[in-house]
């Protein structure tokens, strides 16, 4: 098989061949290759099709800047839209091109090239307007799609998040970053250094330079080895610092963690100081057909010969406007590639650059006006920059360099300012917004000596030590003259290769009035691809500047946002799967419930509760009906532990409760309880519950299960911010008191069978009374509240005693037919009684009067939370939705939430059904609803409008059972 692989050189292991598959072809590379270098070694040049025009594309870059060859990985590595230049080769890798079908060589979408002139930037905003964009969107999205997302998460391994703190975070392990790390690390700082490449060295990996008179990579190895010995230094490779947030909080995505069970790890780092040593990214030159396979960034061509031992072509033309490409030409020559000519847009080529390639033709003051060749480059057309006769040069590789853009992305994310530098013709870091500095090429220090020096300086400053010695090095002086685009030539000249944005598209945007760079970006989509325009954005700004005659510093840049490079969602999520983030809450009875066949589910605030206890062969409805009959006719028991419970202590508790409840609590006598409502200050019900006064200055307040956390916040905020001098202490005791609630007409009989030293006669322990003592020998607080409407005893005990108490209740209650009751039956029983449920009847729009609870609004108190807002709202003439009961006619279920409309017609709703349950006492469906002016509409018929039918219902008072409340007081 023909190969572009060199016999020697590069950082690959020729003894470790790796087999891989690309678009169905079986190929071979070596350990140390990327997918891109292996493809080039196998002479695969046509690797992709472009996004919009489906033009043939090859490999353009050698790192994260790659705008062209995106691949979808299949099998174990399943992931989409990965630049081939950042995929480390491994044995068995399966990759395929995106944007083409069936293959990049024979792509049916290539027809778009023929109609290219009809689909300029923004064409679909203009074309697909009638009757609406949404008609066309699915087809267009499909045609424009990149890779498919993996269908399932990886079967092996998992993602992880890790928090870290350090004195100094260094982004980038090139010469500047390594110098900073070793300087600060030696001084004892807690240093973290992270680099996106698979090995440290940055640009030194791609170039042939010396440090201290020996190959630079020897110096790199020495520094890396030393860092490994320093316990205060954490060195991460294959780890991108991808976000720089406020308060020096940065994200690092580590793609190959040391733990084999980990796919990726995302670090969240709080750094004392940050050094951005992120290097620079070469920008493209803009000329006709600058996207043909074989047209490549000069630094990429240099990387392939030096780092991977691959010749990306046999006969090269180098096109440049700066010095750095001369070093590339020298390296290509040394690798055995014929450099046919260097085309330099500058008329004066600096002597130090020229001497690197004395045997190569240098055509100063010339430009490449176009690349020739259909599926790959076969030659170039060149012409003098100021006009004149053109000529052609044959080549199969065009290495071009438009200068260097400092990678200011992280700096910019930190909100640091940028300034435009005329000498470097690029944007550089200016004023820092956080504790950060930038060094090396990021800061415009383009030579190796300057990079080492600035890194050492920043490391020494961070550690507060004197500047260390800098090893000697030699590097070509950097000099550049801007060339934002070649004006000659008529072929498409691309600014953003990935999104197929041409010079013409930018001109169109400007003609149509989109003259701000942010608008140009959004109109043309230039810089909005996966590569975020790393090679092309500054050229777009330069093109706008040329067209408008405005200097670049006035135009500024578009905003640099995180992530710097794509990060998988898995890495961001880490292990934060549902049950890990918010664990379920359990009562001590969970094991008993499961053993006894309960159907368990979450019913508010993450509590796992038994929904119902089906017996063999019983349906859901049969189970719930049976449990309801047991409570209404005999005795049942349920676990009421999740109810929010707070202990209030202090001299001012009464005063405080008077402020947060609508009724007066402070007059309650010790030993008694009272039901109350709590409003927010804007007059809406936020909770209801019972307050028990244990003694003069000690109370128990219960809240609904789902709102306990919110109420805790409410109490604490008021006490700490509004009444800091009030003597009130709140303690959450939900999990300190568990309870079994025995309910039903036979509840007292079960209590007597259990045995208690508390007098449970109705006179001694009336409804809303409570007493401390023993139940079945267990210390308990007995409370007479009722959520079912039946005689109820809430037996509160310490959690460790609940299972024992439960067993004794089951034994003592057996002769009375006792059975456990789930949440579903509880729901039915409370609806029959017209008791409120937060989230059903209390939905954030109703006030107490709407619910018929106006009696709970104290007239005596001059002020309490919500009093005045309710008064103001009710002084208006708006129709209020009021709580009513409903009886569906004919008898059937109405889904919860069903809208009530006048006459069941398609009209604005006049209310909604809040609950509808099968009542065993009435042997029919009964419900509750919020209905406009409902209190005065009892007896009327209303209609629920569903998708497929209308159901009538008679309006009744909201209490369907025992309206006088005799049973619960019995």
């Amino acid at each position, binding site marked *: 098989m023909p190969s572009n692989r060199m016999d020697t050189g590069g950082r690959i292991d020729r003894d470790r061949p790796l087999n891989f598959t690309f678009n169905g072809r079986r190929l071979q590379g070596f350990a140390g290759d990327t997918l891109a270098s292996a493809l080039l070694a196998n002479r695969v040049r046509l690797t992709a099709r472009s996004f919009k025009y489906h033009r043939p594309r090859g490999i353009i870059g050698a790192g994260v800047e790659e705008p062209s060859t995106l691949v979808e990985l299949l099998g174990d590595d399943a992931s989409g839209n990965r630049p081939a230049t950042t995929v480390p080769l491994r044995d068995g890798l399966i990759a395929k091109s995106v944007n083409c079908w069936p293959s990049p060589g024979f792509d049916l979408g290539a027809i778009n090239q023929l109609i290219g002139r009809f689909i300029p930037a923004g064409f679909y905003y203009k074309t697909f307007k009638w009757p609406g964009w949404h008609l066309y969107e699915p087809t267009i999205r499909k045609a424009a799609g990149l890779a498919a997302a993996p269908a399932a998460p990886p079967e092996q391994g998992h993602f992880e998040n890790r*928090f870290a703190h350090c004195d100094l975070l260094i982004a980038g392990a090139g010469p500047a970053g390594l110098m900073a790390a070793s300087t600060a690390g030696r001084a004892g700082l807690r240093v973290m250094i992270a680099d996106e490449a698979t090995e440290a060295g940055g640009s030194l990996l791609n170039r042939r330079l010396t440090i201290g008179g020996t190959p630079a990579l020897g110096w790199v190895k020495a520094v890396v080895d030393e860092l490994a010995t320093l316990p205060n230094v954490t060195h991460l490779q294959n780890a991108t610092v991808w976000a720089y*947030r*406020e*308060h020096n*909080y940065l994200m690092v995505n580590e793609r190959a963690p040391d733990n084999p069970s980990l796919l990726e790890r995302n670090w*969240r780092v*709080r750094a004392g100081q940050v050094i951005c040593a992120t290097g620079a990214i070469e920008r493209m030159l803009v000329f006709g057909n600058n996207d043909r396979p074989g047209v490549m960034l000069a630094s990429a061509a240099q990387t392939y010969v030096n780092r991977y031992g691959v010749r990306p072509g046999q006969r090269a033309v180098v096109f440049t406007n700066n010095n750095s490409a001369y070093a590339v030409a020298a390296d290509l020559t040394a690798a055995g590639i014929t450099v046919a000519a260097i085309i330099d847009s500058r008329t004066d080529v600096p002597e130090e650059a020229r001497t690197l390639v004395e045997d190569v033709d240098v055509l100063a003051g010339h430009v490449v006006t176009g690349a020739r060749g259909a599926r790959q480059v076969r030659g170039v057309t060149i012409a003098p920059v100021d006009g004149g006769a053109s000529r052609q040069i044959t080549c199969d590789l065009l290495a071009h360099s438009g200068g260097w853009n400092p990678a200011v992305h992280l700096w910019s994310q930190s*909100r640091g300012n940028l300034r435009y530098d005329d000498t470097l013709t690029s944007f550089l870091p200016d004023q820092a*917004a956080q504790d950060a500095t930038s060094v090396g090429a990021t800061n415009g220090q383009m030579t190796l000596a300057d990079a080492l020096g600035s890194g050492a300086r920043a490391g020494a400053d961070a550690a507060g030590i004197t500047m260390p010695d800098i090893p000697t090095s030699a590097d070509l002086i950097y000099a550049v003259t801007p060339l934002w685009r070649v004006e000659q030539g008529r072929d498409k000249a691309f600014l953003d290769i990935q999104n197929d944005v041409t010079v013409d598209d930018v001109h169109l945007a400007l003609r149509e009035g989109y003259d701000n760079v942010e608008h140009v970006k959004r109109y043309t989509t230039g810089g909005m691809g996966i590569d975020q325009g790393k090679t092309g954005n500054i050229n777009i700004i330069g093109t706008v500047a040329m067209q408008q005659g405005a200097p670049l510093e006035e135009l500024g840049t578009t905003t640099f946002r995180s992530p710097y490079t794509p990060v998988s969602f898995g890495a961001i999520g880490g292990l934060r799967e549902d049950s890990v983030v918010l664990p379920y809450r359990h009562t001590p009875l969970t094991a008993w419930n499961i053993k006894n066949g309960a159907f368990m589910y979450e019913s508010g605030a993450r509590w796992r509760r038994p929904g119902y206890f089906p017996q063999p062969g019983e349906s859901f409805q049969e189970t719930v009906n049976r449990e309801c009959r047991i409570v209404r006719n005999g005795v049942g028991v349920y676990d009421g532990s999740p109810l929010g419970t707070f202990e209030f202590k202090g001299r001012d508790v009464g005063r405080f409760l008077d402020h947060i409840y609508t009724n007066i609590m402070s007059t309650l006598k010790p030993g008694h309880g009272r039901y109350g409502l709590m409003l927010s*200050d*804007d007059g809406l019900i936020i909770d209801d519950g019972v307050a028990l006064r244990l003694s003069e200055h000690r109370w128990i307040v219960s809240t609904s299960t789902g709102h306990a956390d919110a109420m805790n*916040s409410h109490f*604490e*905020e008021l006490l*700490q*911010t*509004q009444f800091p001098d009030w003597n009130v202490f709140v303690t959450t005791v939900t999990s300190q008191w568990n309870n079994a609630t025995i309910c039903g007409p036979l509840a007292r009989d079960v209590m007597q069978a259990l045995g208690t030293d508390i007098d449970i006669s109705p006179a001694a322990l009336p409804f809303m009374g409570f007493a401390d003592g023993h139940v079945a020998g267990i210390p308990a607080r007995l409370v007479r509240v009722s959520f079912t409407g039946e005689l109820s005893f809430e037996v509160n005990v310490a959690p460790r005693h609940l299972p024992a108490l439960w067993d004794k209740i089951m034994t003592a209650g057996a002769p009375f037919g006792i059975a456990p009751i789930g949440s579903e039956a509880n729901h039915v029983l409370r609806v029959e009684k017209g008791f409120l449920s937060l989230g059903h009847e209390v939905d954030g729009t109703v006030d107490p009067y709407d619910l018929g609870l106006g009696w709970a609004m104290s007239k005596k108190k*001059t*002020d309490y939370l919500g*009093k*005045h*807002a309710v008064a*103001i709202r009710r002084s208006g003439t708006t129709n209020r939705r009021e709580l009513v009961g409903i009886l569906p006619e004919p008898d059937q279920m109405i889904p919860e939430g069903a809208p009530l409309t006048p006459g069941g017609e398609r009209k604005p709703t006049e209310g909604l059904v809040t609950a509808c349950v099968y009542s065993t006492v009435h042997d029919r469906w009964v419900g509750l609803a919020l209905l406009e002016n409902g209190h005065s509409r009892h007896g009327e018929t209303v209609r629920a409008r569903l998708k497929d039918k209308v159901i009538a219902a008679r309006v009744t008072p909201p209490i369907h059972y025992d309206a006088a409340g005799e049973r619960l007081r019995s």
Partner: protein
Amino acid sequence: MMNIPCPFCGSRNEAEFAFGGPVKPDRPDPNTVSEGEWVAYLTQVPNPLGPVQERWWHVKGCGMWLTIWRDTRTHDIVEGPADAE
């Protein structure tokens, strides 16, 4: 993700806190202000471009409600709670 200075616990990650909203003026006595003033108190929340005084609850820490001045443009905490280091 901000670092919020807590007077009890020291500088802690924002993830430990719950946002309590901007600080409104002191609650007036509703019996002495006009209806309009009362509605304004209930509904108007400071939302400046720049420093805003706001409350955070250290719910996953000591439980303290604390007050900071945060610059809404930069997230810089321009003034921490009293007693915080």
